Each structure stands twice: as structure tokens, then as C-alpha cells.
């Protein structure tokens, strides 16, 4: 009769049909969340402009060449800020889910037959999309303004793909887990922003990792951001930049191991600590 929004609903289900699949509801959640995200114009503008502004500022202030590598500091920032962009999920989900818990979204959903996994599928797909757009913008600016060279080898792009996907998933799961910490949506941005900024400073996003004290890098090694940045440096700085790493190599096997461990650990953390209710709901 009327036009349909979800393609899956084209054929009307018979009355005896089973419940809609997790994948179908998850995709529907992703579409719904993404549409709502892009309608909050102020949030959209700031989400996408923040890493760009940082890149332009840092890239313009620090132009020195890195000794014996043929690279300059601004290229280092591009790789670091791509790591940061891939970790946006931590902040977006940490604050966003705290908001969903506070404004009644989670409680409403818990009262429907929506499978809980579909909610997380929706959040994860939405985060992958937002992060991918951020990274694309950063790459474009890096190439246009800061002499960033995109790799030509397929193997580099494969590395980029797995670092990106593992990084986004691991930090999203971590974001879902920390969303239970703030007492309310009002306090969420303060509670979540602090660890994110600290992580960026100790993980080599703003300050080259070789200039950080050893204990700081040791702390950073426990968290995914350091390894994500390292993986992205391997893609965009190439062999010439490997001498800048602490281990004099990009240690891609360790990057994979630790990001993979975060995905598994983050999943366990989410499943064991996730609250569908706000603290005031008891």
C-alpha cells in the first residue's frame, strides 16, 4: 500500500512466521541510528571537524623533518589521528549509550522482542561508518596539505583494513563497557572524555612515542590506541619510519595479538557488566 522503508519488509510475513532474525533487526537498528546521528547537525559537525582541526593545527605547527627518515612530523600526526579517529567509537558509544540508558531508550527496547545483540550490531555498524568517514577525510587532508603518500601495495591496504576493523571493534566494545560507569548522561562526557584524551597523549597521537618516558609507553601498551597508531604508521610511513619505533620495527604480529585480545576481552567485559537500566531505576 504505502512505500516501505526497510527493504526486508517488502514481502509481508505470514502470521505464523517466526521472529525477525538478529541480522535483520541489527541492520534496521544501524539504519535507524545512523539516520538519527546525521540529524543532530551540531554533533555531526563537531564529530567530523575535531580530528581535522587537530590535524591542521598540529601539522602546521610542527613541520620539522624526522632525522634520517625522509619523513616529517606532520605525516606522523596523520597516522596518529587516524588511530584516534578509529577510536572514536570509544567516546561516541561511551557517551551515547549512557545517554540511551538515561533517556529511556534502553528500557524501552528491553520491553520489546528486539534481540539485545541487534542493539550492539546497530551500534557497531554505525561506529564503523562514522569512523570510516572520519578516516577518509583525514586521508584527503593529509594528501592535500601534508605530503602524505597513500601506499600503493595491496598488502599495506590489507594491513590498514585489519588494523581499522579490529581497532574500531575493540575500542567500541571498550566504549560500551565504560558506558556503565557514568552515573547519568550529564556526567558521561566528562567521565569518558578524560581517559580518551589521556590515552591520546600517552599512545603517540600528539607526541611521538619515541619522546615519551618509558613508563608512560609501558602503560599505553595495555590499551589498544598505541597499537592502532603503530599499525597505521606502518601503512602510511613505510619502512623509513620503522627506525622511529621503540622496537625499531612495527611489530605487526603484536599489534594483531593485542587488538584481537581487546576485541575478545571487550566482548566479555560488555556481556558481564552491561546494564539495561539506569542507576536510578534500581
Amino acid at each position, binding site marked *: 500500500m504505502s512505500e516501505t522503508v526497510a527493504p526486508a519488509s517488502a514481502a509481508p510475513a505470514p502470521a505464523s512466521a517466526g521472529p525477525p532474525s538478529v541480522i535483520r533487526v541489527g541492520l534496521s537498528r544501524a539504519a535507524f541510528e545512523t539516520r538519527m546521528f546525521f540529524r543532530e547537525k551540531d554533533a555531526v559537525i563537531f564529530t567530523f571537524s575535531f580530528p581535522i582541526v587537530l590535524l591542521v593545527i598540529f601539522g602546521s605547527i610542527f613541520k620539522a623533518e624526522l632525522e634520517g627518515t625522509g619523513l616529517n612530523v606532520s605525516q606522523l600526526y596523520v597516522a596518529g589521528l587516524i588511530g584516534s579517529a578509529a577510536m572514536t567509537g570509544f567516546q561516541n558509544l561511551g557517551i551515547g549509550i549512557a545517554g540511551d540508558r538515561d533517556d*529511556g*531508550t534502553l528500557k*524501552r527496547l528491553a520491553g*520489546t*522482542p528486539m534481540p539485545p545483540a541487534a542493539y550492539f550490531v546497530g551500534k557497531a555498524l554505525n561506529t564503523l561508518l562514522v569512523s570510516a568517514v572520519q578516516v577518509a577525510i583525514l586521508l584527503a587532508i593529509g594528501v592535500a596539505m601534508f605530503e602524505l603518500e597513500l601506499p600503493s601495495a595491496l598488502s599495506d591496504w590489507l594491513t590498514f583494513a585489519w588494523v581499522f576493523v579490529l581497532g574500531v571493534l575493540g575500542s567500541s566494545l571498550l566504549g560500551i563497557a565504560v558506558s556503565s560507569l557514568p552515573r547519568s548522561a550529564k556526567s558521561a562526557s566528562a567521565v569518558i572524555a578524560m581517559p580518551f584524551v589521556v590515552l591520546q597523549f600517552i599512545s603517540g597521537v600528539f607526541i611521538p612515542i619515541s619522546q615519551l618516558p618509558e613508563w608512560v609507553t609501558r602503560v599505553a601498551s595495555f590499551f589498544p590506541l598505541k597499537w592502532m597508531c603503530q599499525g597505521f604508521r606502518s601503512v602510511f610511513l613505510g619502512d623509513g619510519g620503522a627506525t622511529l619505533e621503540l622496537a625499531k620495527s612495527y611489530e605487526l604480529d603484536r599489534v594483531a595479538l593485542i587488538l584481537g585480545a581487546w576485541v575478545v576481552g571487550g566482548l566479555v567485559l560488555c556481556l558481564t557488566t552491561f546494564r539495561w537500566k539506569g542507576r536510578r531505576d534500581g
Partner: protein
Amino acid sequence: MTTTAVRVRGLAKRYGDVQAVGGIDLDISPGEVFAILGPNGAGKSTTVEILEGYRKRDAGEVSVLGVDPGRPTREWRSRVGVVLQTANDMTEATVRETVRHFAGYYPDAEDPDAVIEQVGLTEKAGKRVRELSGGQRRRVDVALGVIGRPELLFLDEPTTGFDPEARRRFWDLIQGLAHRGTTIVLTTHYLDEAEALADRVAVIAKGRIVAEGEPATLGGRATAKATVRWAGGSLETDTPTRAVRELSERFDGEVPELTVTRPSLEDVYLGLIGD
């Protein structure tokens, strides 16, 4: 085969030192509109949230549509509609998008446009939820509660903050649902609302049911002493008709400012929840 929509025996729930619910029995029949009344903190919300599958109980037997809500399943969730007290979510989506999206959760959802029509929001279907008035928002909540064709609908204080006209129109909506055979469990602070909508009411105070029955007869309302008032006097009597006849003779015709009243539901209610 279940013959009751909701069956509760000896329900109890404690928070720390506070016994929120202290042994409640309830039977609600299919197709019935059942109102739960009670002051804040009486255990009303706790009871309903246990029935809705949101809270665990400490003790007692509970069956909602033949299922223990302490172990809710997806299949059960699709047979139960829940309209919560307050919600400020999904402000950026339009009414139609929201109702269509929720329809996708259910195995046999109703046509979204038909439900939007039913709750009287057809003209607002393209509006974002944030642009709606409080009463219109509650209509969206009801639309989301009934989109899956529930057999049982929970409404938690649905008209709090409404102006009198919006409340009347909301009552029409609920009566329409009841006529279609949906069992409705309603909590409310408004006694006129319970009287207008409910087939039966239960009054909860201090975690227990202190009275249960039809609104017209609750707490012996129908048989309580009537009060006869007129200009210059009043009396309480079991035989108001005789009192009026005597007054009529005394005034030789019309009795000025004559009224005959029995206790209102509110009088009964306040008597029940008081100490």
C-alpha cells in the same frame, strides 16, 4: 491453557530494609481493563515492573500470559506491550519512522500507518518526535506499545501532566483498545481515570492490596451512608429517599440546593490508604 491473563500469588520484593511488596495476590482476566491505584512508594511500580519482566521478585508465583516474567523470552515479549512512565528518547526520528522501525521487531506487526491513525497522529506522522506536545508523545508511546498486536498492554501512569481535554481524548484511545479485546493493566494517580476506564481496580498501600473490586462498589461505596445536603442543613442516612421525601414535605415542594451523594472513589481511596 490459561484462563487468566495475569495470575499472582504471594508476590514479595524487598529493597534492603524496605519491604516494597509484601505478599500480593492478583487475578486479571483476558480482555479486562484493570487499574492499580496507590500512593507513590506503595509498591505499585515495583509490582508492575515485576509483571513486565523488568525486575526480579524475591518470592511468590507470577504468571503473565502463561509465562513467568522472571524469565522473559522473545516470543513472550512480542505478546506483551509496555508503555513506560517517562521517555525522552528518539527525539530526532519522525513518528512514522519510529513506528515502522519498531514494527520490524515483531513477527506479526500491525500496519504502521493504521496504528498511527488509531492513535490519532496521522497529521503528525512526518513530524519529528521532539516537535510533539507531551500528549502527542504519549500517543507515540502507545503506538509503539501496540504495534506488535499485544494480547496484554501495560500502561504506567499514561496521562500524568495532561490537560483535561487531552486526558479525555487519551481515554477514548484506551477504550478503543479495550473494545478490541486487548487486556490492559493500568497504573494511575487519577481516580477519575480509573473510574472511567477500569473494569476493576486494586488499591495498593504499603506493599499490600487493601481493596479490590469494581470502581462503583469499591470499599463498600455503593452501600455506604448517603449524605443529603440542602440550604441550611445536612444529614447522613441509610434511607436517603425517605429523607428527601420528608424534606420535600417540609419545604412544601422544591428543596433549595438539594444534593444526595455517596462517598466518591476519592473519599474511599483516601480512607483506604490512610492509617
